[in-house]
């Protein structure tokens, strides 16, 4: 949680929290586990109305922020979603929205509109598994886009492809001939990933996002945004886990006194509190840097992911341990959080990937 919120931000956060607590409490999340997409489109539309898809869009395009710093505002949504292990596709939808806006809307106005209205969902692929070959004024795309969040459920796919001349990005409709998504299982109950096969997919020039130039810088920026939102979500998740585990330590008695009175446990809670505050600190710093397009943005985003990725998982596992046997039962909610932070840890770059990224920047 950012420490100092404006009044607008405070109110917005409260609104989002109330909405999530009412519309997608953990009982609902458990139910959604059996749904293919893991979330409900009507629910998502309500979120879009609340502003979940507007924060990275300038006012003249129908968007708007609370504080003038859209990414910080959006991080509030991510944190609240983390607190309730919410479903949805906050990261890819907003990354794609930001990409369209950054690149100049061009022919993607209708897609942008649908995404902002919550009528459509987008997926985003930034890996190196797809190649684009020039063909008939446009390109033909081939390969496999692995591990795409919401990949089987999205209406639009922003795909990064390699060419002989750098990277290009294309915004394709999910219905494009030659696109074949295959769902993957996930540890998370409601977050969905798919591998998408691309077999001679035709991509005309008007599907390009950012024009026919190297998209490397755009991809970097997209990754930074994804990292900020993902780590903010994780920070929200561990906030909540730490809250209810601390409460448990006060309520639970062993040998006639509460767990919270045992020094060995107190010290572990102290360490966890430190990890928690440090996680918030680094997420906030990364969000600011990315928002301001600071020259350190890439570095600070990777710092945040490497730190939060590892510490959050350690924190939740330690909280499981604090709960004893009940912490590993299906009935207890803590595993929902452990699933989410673990999936977050390993997607959009593992902590190890991000450490290597930081090293590249340091040794450059």
């Amino acid at each position, binding site marked *: 949680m950012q420490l100092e919120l404006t009044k607008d931000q405070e109110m917005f956060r409260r609104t989002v929290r109330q909405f999530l607590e009412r519309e997608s409490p953990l009982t609902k999340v458990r139910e959604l586990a059996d749904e293919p997409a893991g979330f409900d489109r009507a629910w998502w539309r309500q979120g879009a109305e609340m502003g979940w898809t507007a924060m990275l869009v300038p006012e003249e395009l129908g968007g708007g922020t609370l504080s003038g710093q859209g990414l910080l505002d959006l991080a509030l949504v991510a944190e609240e979603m983390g607190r309730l292990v919410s479903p949805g596709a906050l990261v890819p939808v907003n990354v794609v929205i930001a990409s369209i806006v950054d690149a100049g809307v061009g022919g993607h106005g209708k897609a942008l509109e649908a995404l902002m209205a919550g009528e459509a969902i987008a997926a985003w692929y930034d890996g190196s598994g797809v190649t684009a070959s020039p063909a008939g004024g446009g390109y033909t795309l081939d390969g496999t886009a*692995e*591990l795409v969040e919401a990949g089987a459920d999205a209406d639009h796919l922003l795909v990064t492809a390699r060419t002989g001349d750098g990277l290009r990005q294309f915004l394709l409709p999910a219905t494009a001939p030659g696109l074949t998504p*295959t*769902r*993957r*299982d*996930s*540890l*998370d109950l409601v977050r969905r*990933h798919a*591998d998408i096969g691309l077999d001679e997919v035709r991509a005309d020039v008007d599907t390009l996002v950012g024009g026919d130039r190297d998209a490397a810088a755009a991809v970097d920026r997209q990754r930074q945004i994804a990292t900020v939102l993902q780590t903010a979500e994780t920070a929200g998740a561990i906030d909540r886990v730490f809250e209810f585990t601390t409460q*448990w330590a*006060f*309520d*639970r*008695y*062993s*040998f*006639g*006194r509460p*767990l919270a009175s*045992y020094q*060995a*446990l107190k010290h572990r809670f102290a360490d966890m509190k430190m990890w928690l505050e440090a996680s918030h600190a680094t997420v906030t710093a990364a969000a600011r840097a990315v928002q301001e397009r600071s020259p350190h943005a890439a570095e600070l985003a990777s710092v945040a992911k490497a730190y939060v990725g590892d510490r959050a*998982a350690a924190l939740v*596992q330690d909280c*499981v*341990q604090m*709960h*004893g*046997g*009940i*912490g*590993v*039962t*299906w*009935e*207890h909610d803590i*595993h929902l959080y*452990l*699933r989410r932070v*673990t*999936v977050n840890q*390993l*997607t959009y770059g*593992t902590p*190890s990937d991000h450490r290597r990224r930081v090293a590249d920047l340091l040794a450059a």
Partner: protein
Amino acid sequence: MSEDLESYRLAAREWLAANLPTVDGGGARLGSDDEAWQRARELQRILHDGGYAGIAYPKEYGGRGLTPAHQRVFNEESAGYEMPLLLNVPTFSICAPAILDFGTEEQKREHLPAVLRGDEVLVQFLSEPRGGSDLAGAITRATRDGDMWVLNGSKIWSSGAYAADYGICLARTDWEAPKHSGLTMFIVKVHQPGVEVRRIKQVNGDSEFCQEFFDDVQIPASDVLGEVNGGWAVASRLLFHERTAVGGGSPYVSGGHAVARVPEPDLVELARRGGRLDDPGVRELIAESHILRTVAGQLVDRVSAGIRGGAMPDPAASLPRLFSATSNERRIDIALAVAGPAAVIPPAGAPGDLGARYLMRQGGSLGGGSSEMARNIISERVLGMPREFAADKGVPFSQVRQSQTPG
């Protein structure tokens, strides 16, 4: 003696080849269902009839009266054969030894031969929903009523209770005595009126652990194990047997492992599949995992020998316990790091069990007393440091504060 062991080994080798089916690589057949339990009973019957049940148990109670060394020899030879590993913990290595230690002559004659024949499966009813690791804080109650005791309350974390015949159950019988002095241990028939066994689903989908609810369960007075209000002595002994078994040092374990082990993930293979086997960082992780596993085994050997030879006190059994719990946590973290995203979002067709293991990472520290309890035991009973202040010490149990929440 050592020649005797050698000929024993050869005879066992021959008998095993002739009487038991072999199993593939991964070791024992896993199972948490009724079929697996049924099969374990059948296998035990085969061992029994062949003279290989209860090798280190006294002859008068259906065992063979041989030494722990004979059991070890047999265990070495039985590697690769299908064995009734499900019966090792707690039946053979925890519950039956406690009956051997504390049972009346009648109790021993009733239960031990049946256990060794595979006819009786035993389970521990120790933990309680509000109790955590404070086993002596039990609030399940037994009230005397003529020749019978009447049991009410609930127990939890009993492994395989749904498949067991008897539970060794700790209950409070005097509420005005301090906590340890008001407990009695009972041998409770599981399948009888008033006992409800509910299986607990765990995050990895297993439902081997159970919770039991007791509603006016009738127990004959002759089924008290040990002394009335002397239940804590029996419980302590159960805990000792449990630490020993989990630490790998029980003389009553039959077959290669105390418990049916889940096969280890092959990190070299995981890294190869992810195209990362040439990465020095990944290679170090793989090595670290192997090193921890190797040292864990070496520590079991050292501590078992130390306790046997008297160089270490019994509670030293908590050392390998703590090592295996903490190193297993680290090793599952390593497996996740080696596998990367495929660990939690497996590609179509790939095995998806690594993520589930990660969710159960604490398993080793929660079963058999937590790592925190192990650290208490090591510091207090191995290093002799002062005991933790217990707010419930010497106080009538009825005045002790209890948890606000079950779980």
